[in-house]
């Protein structure tokens, strides 16, 4: 969003020229930017259970802090089936110490007005949230869109879920720890079987046509089968068979080894549904009725959503807030202005350019809480992808030559003051103890680049590049790259598309030349994303990569039960994907989230991200009213 220039709101005087220029750019950029959103990825597997006993995971009570069946990320851990009581909501550490905790390459924390994580939550109040999502219906089965998830996630529960903010000790936004949601316990007697006992006395929301009936194992079976019948979710839910053993017991059998089944089921979109809704409406597009903390009592697509507290929620002390009001903004400047005016506790558009927008907001609202995350769990990598089966892009020398031809620090310094990252979710994950080696492609050397291209017979290369400016500054950044590549005889022909046209070309596998500006990495847990998007056997291998070495590494990554082997396999897969430069990343700024100091409990992680995939953690948010 570096292209966006808002006017300077600081105490300094604002010149008319600056104001007009800023307004014009903001207005123009805003129209494109309202579509922007998304986020996500990643994992971690450190904490938790490593004991390899075939025990049962006995998750504790359903009260305040959720029971943490810390099945961690690895299947080895899940097999161990530990039971660790989760942290209370009051626990946690301040930003500075959180920032110095694992993962080692991580860079996150509060850069202004760090919240007191030990403050005692208060009940009541209405959260006012400015969103920008235009959800394509509310059906979790039919739409994998983050925009739909953004609206429906507070309504539903999952069988298992990712731990929320302070449940993670220490808080670590990159860590994916699995805990029970509607499950009370889990047994993992062998690599192919999971048995879940359900919490007793869980009821659906008391809304027609479900009318507060009890939640049973049949609902789990119905819900998971619905997602398995959908080709999108089926691609990452693995091959599973679901059986309701009795009203309180569900058995899930794998038909082939898949160590990621828990991570996939904890995805915020894999929610527990009530069949009565689909029976009445045909699908789940129009109404969202679940067992979750909030009841969606008024929803006007593209306008607003209003939620009220679910009095029958199984966590009797949650949610803290009485209600939530989401208002839809299409314009970034308006969203920011409304936040500055104090009309919203949080604004989804407050994912901002640190050099401009944060400064503006802090000048107007000095106490605003600002959270920085170096590389969000983006569901995208900002990069140039090469169709792997088309000449000359199938020549590694060409791909690496192009990548070596531009200096990433030029734009990184210009737009982000030198604070930037590359390769987003794949590199910034807890699988690495230190920054990974990105290989020769990321070492700027124009002479070597020219030599490589010449050796490949491409001394004067024209690169047609279809892109969609996802993220506000793709245009700026690509023009910077274009200028640098000219110096090595590469003519980057930029062809800008709108989102849908871009998706049609990319997902339609119609790309003959380099494409993107961003490579979607959904699902967001990086190992799963690698399997779904780059494995030659996946129907979603849109850039038609066929690398036996990479496939072997991913096969190992997604089947081994040994955590150390998993980690090694991830690094191996990463190297086999990144170092041959099947796609080459450019720079990305850190993500900044801002919210009012009245709001507490905002501790995002990859599966609980109110500015992206979902808001299920909103049950832990509270307002200092």
């Amino acid at each position, binding site marked *: 969003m570096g292209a966006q220039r808002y006017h300077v709101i600081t105490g300094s005087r604002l010149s008319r020229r600056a104001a007009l220029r800023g307004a014009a750019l903001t*207005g123009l950029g*805003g129209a494109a930017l309202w579509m922007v959103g998304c986020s996500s990825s990643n994992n971690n597997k450190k904490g938790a259970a490593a004991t390899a006993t075939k025990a049962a995971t006995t998750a504790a009570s359903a009260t305040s802090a959720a029971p943490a069946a810390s099945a961690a990320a690895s299947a080895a851990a899940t097999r161990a089936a530990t039971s660790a009581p989760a942290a209370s909501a009051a626990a946690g550490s301040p930003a500075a110490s959180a920032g110095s905790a694992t993962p080692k390459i991580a860079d996150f924390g509060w850069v202004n007005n760090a919240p007191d994580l030990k403050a005692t939550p208060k009940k009541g109040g209405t959260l006012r949230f400015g969103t920008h999502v235009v959800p*394509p219906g*509310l059906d979790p089965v039919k739409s994998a869109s983050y925009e739909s998830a953004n609206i429906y996630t507070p309504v539903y529960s999952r069988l298992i879920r990712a731990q929320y903010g302070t449940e993670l000790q220490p808080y670590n936004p990159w860590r994916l720890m699995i805990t029970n949601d509607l499950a009370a316990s889990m047994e993992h007697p062998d690599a192919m079987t999971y048995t879940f006992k359900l919490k007793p006395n869980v009821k659906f929301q008391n809304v027609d046509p479900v009318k507060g009936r009890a939640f049973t194992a049949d609902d789990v079976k119905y819900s998971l089968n619905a997602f398995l019948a959908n*080709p999108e979710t089926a691609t990452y839910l693995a091959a599973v068979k679901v059986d309701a053993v009795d009203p309180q017991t569900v058995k899930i059998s794998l038909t082939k080894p898949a160590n990621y089944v828990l991570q996939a089921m904890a995805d915020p979109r894999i929610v527990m549904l009530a069949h009565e809704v689909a029976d009445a409406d045909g699908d789940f597009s129009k109404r969202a009725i679940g067992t979750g903390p909030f009841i969606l009592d008024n929803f006007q697509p593209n*306008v607003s959503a209003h939620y009220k507290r679910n009095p029958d929620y199984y966590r009797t002390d949650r949610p803290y807030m009485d209600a939530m009001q989401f208002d839809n903004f299409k*314009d970034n400047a308006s969203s920011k202005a409304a936040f500055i005016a104090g009309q919203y506790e949080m604004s989804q558009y407050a994912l901002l350019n640190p050099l401009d927008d944060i400064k503006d907001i802090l000048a107007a609202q000095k106490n605003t809480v600002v959270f920085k995350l170096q590389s969000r769990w983006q569901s995208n990598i900002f990069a140039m992808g090469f169709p792997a089966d088309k000449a000359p892009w199938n020549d590694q020398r060409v791909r690496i030559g192009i990548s070596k031809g531009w200096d990433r620090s030029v734009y990184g310094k210009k737009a982000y003051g030198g604070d930037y990252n590359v390769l987003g979710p794949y590199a910034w994950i807890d699988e690495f103890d230190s920054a990974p080696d990105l290989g020769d492609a990321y070492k700027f050397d124009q002479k070597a680049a020219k030599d490589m291209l010449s050796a490949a017979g491409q001394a004067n290369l024209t690169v047609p590049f279809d892109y969609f400016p996802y993220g506000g500054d793709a245009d700026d950044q690509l023009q910077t790259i274009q200028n640098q590549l000219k110096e090595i005889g590469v003519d980057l022909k930029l062809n800008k598309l709108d989102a*849908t046209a871009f998706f049609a070309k*990319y*997902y339609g596998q119609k790309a003959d030349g380099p494409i993107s500006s961003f490579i979607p990495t959904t699902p967001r847990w990086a190992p799963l994303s690698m399997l779904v998007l780059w494995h030659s056997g996946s129907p979603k291998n849109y850039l038609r990569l066929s690398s036996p070495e990479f496939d072997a590494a991913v096969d190992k990554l997604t089947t081994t039960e040994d955590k150390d082997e998993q980690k090694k396999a991830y690094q191996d897969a990463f190297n086999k994907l990144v170092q041959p430069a099947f796609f080459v990343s450019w720079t990305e700024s850190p993500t900044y989230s801002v919210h009012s100091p009245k709001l507490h409990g905002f501790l995002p992680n990859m599966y609980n991200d109110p500015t992206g995939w979902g808001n299920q953690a909103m049950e832990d948010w509270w307002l200092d009213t």
Partner: protein
Amino acid sequence: MAQYIVRRLLLAVPVLVGVSLLVFFMARILPGDVFTAQSGTAGLTADQRAKLRHEAGLDRPLAVQYFDWAGHAAVLNFGDSLWNRRSVNKELRRAVPITLELTVLGSLIGLLIAVPLGVLSAATRGSPVDYLARLFGVIGLSIPSYVLGTLAITYLAVWFRWTPPAGGISFFSNPWRNMQQFLIPSTILGAGFSAAVVRMTRSSVLGALHEDYVRTAWAKGLRARLVLLRHVLRNALIPVLTLSGAQVGYLLGGTVIIESIFTLSGVGSMAFDAITNRDYFVLQAVTLLAAAAFTLVNLLVDISYVWLDPRIRLR
């Protein structure tokens, strides 16, 4: 007169059919479809997309799709949105009052500024007032409404810690809050509207001031106000009205951005979303509605000529 109106309404039918055909086919030329847009970054394989297109009937021949849609549209049934499966009619019932209020209020404010200013400018030709009015016209035409809107909302937030509330509250349910929402965006739309009209009013009034009947009125010793209002303005208004009718079309276009900036989810926003999301049924309905509104406004303008100039006979 009645015959004229009926004939004009009948003539509007081919216009609307033409517009619907144009939009129908142009929307389908755009790369990608609603299902591609819906899947977003999650993506969709060719098989998945084909299945969804079949379920929605989008794999049928275009002619079949058009006549199917047109048959329903003829009885004002615009179907369900492909994007969110909601009834388009229901969405229009919510959105139309927002855009209507914005457009009507914008036009009224524009006329209230433009006509007096144009008359004053012409009546005081060469004076500082005239120069100021002309300067207003030039500035108003030069600054796009989205710039004014962004500036307005930003300064309101920074200086007064206030921005117009989001949503679209009916005037009848809460007039005060409704005005909080609509007054500023309508004024911004009206400013752009008035800039064009003030220049036309000025030149038209200047032309009328030199007519023989005006000289006669002066010679009769009528008061200046009477001369200006009864003899000059009434005759000068015909080109002003013609321009205003055309400006309503531009005003409707302007609401797309203004609605986005001021978080008013009216028809403009619906159109914008529909184009982005390739939501064909919504796009077709909105375009048809806009074309019908534009046609109706121009009919009203034509009818008003008779009131302004009894010599005109509509046949």
